[in-house]
C-alpha cells in the first residue's frame, strides 16, 4: 500500500465514523481537536484503524500520535 492510499483510506474512514467533512482533515491538523475526540472516543479511532489495516495498536503508541500526518506515518510503519 502506498502512502497516498493510506492517506485517502484513513481520511474517508475517519470522516465517515466521526461525521466530519474530509476537507477539515489536513496533515498538520490535530486529530483530537478535528474529530472532537474525548478520552472515550480515542478507543474508537484505534479500533477503526486496527480493523481497516489489520494491525494491533496499543494505547500508549496511539497517545503519542498528535496530527494526521503522524497518524499516516504511524500506520505506514506498522504495516511495513
Amino acid at each position, binding site marked *: 500500500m502506498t502512502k497516498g492510499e493510506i492517506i485517502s483510506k484513513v481520511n474517508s474512514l475517519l470522516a465517515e465514523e466521526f461525521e466530519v467533512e474530509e476537507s477539515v482533515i489536513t496533515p498538520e491538523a490535530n486529530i483530537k481537536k478535528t474529530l472532537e475526540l474525548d*478520552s*472515550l472516543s*480515542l*478507543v474508537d479511532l*484505534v*479500533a477503526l484503524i*486496527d*480493523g481497516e489495516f489489520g494491525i494491533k495498536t496499543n494505547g500508549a503508541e496511539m*497517545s503519542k500520535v498528535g496530527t494526521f500526518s503522524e497518524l499516516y506515518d504511524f500506520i505506514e510503519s506498522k504495516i511495513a
Partner: protein
Amino acid sequence: MQQGEEIKQLIPQREPIMMIDTFYGATETTGKSGLTVLADNVFCEDGQLREMGVIEHIAQTCAAYNGVKNKKNNGVESKPKLGYIGEIKKCQIARLPRIGEQLVTEVEATAQVMNVTLMEATTKIGSETIASCQIKLFEED
C-alpha cells in the same frame, strides 16, 4: 464455569439486578456468560425480558470478563477495580427474550486505550442472534 453465588465474586451487582447466572469463562480478550429469564426478573414485563434487561446482561458480562482478567493479571486477592460503562453504541436488539429462554453472551475486547476498553458483544438464544452492541468500559485507577 461459575454459577449462583460464585457469580458474586465476579461482579459487584446484587439482587435484584444480577443479570448473569452463569459465567462460562474468559480468555485474555474474551468472556462468555449466560442468563435464564425467570418470571420474577426485575426487567420482565408481560412475559418478556425488556431491552434494559438485555443491555444490563451484556454490560454485566463485560464486567465479569473484566473481573476475571484483573484477577488473572493482578492476583486472586487483588481488590477488584470498579468498571463503569462509559458508552454504549450500535446496540441492536432483534427481539425480546421470553421467560424460560436462555441468553448466552460473548464479549470480545477489540481495542484498549489507557483505562478505556472497547468491547464487542453478541447475545444469542440457541443459534439465533438476538442482540449485538459495542460497550466502552471505563476502569477506575
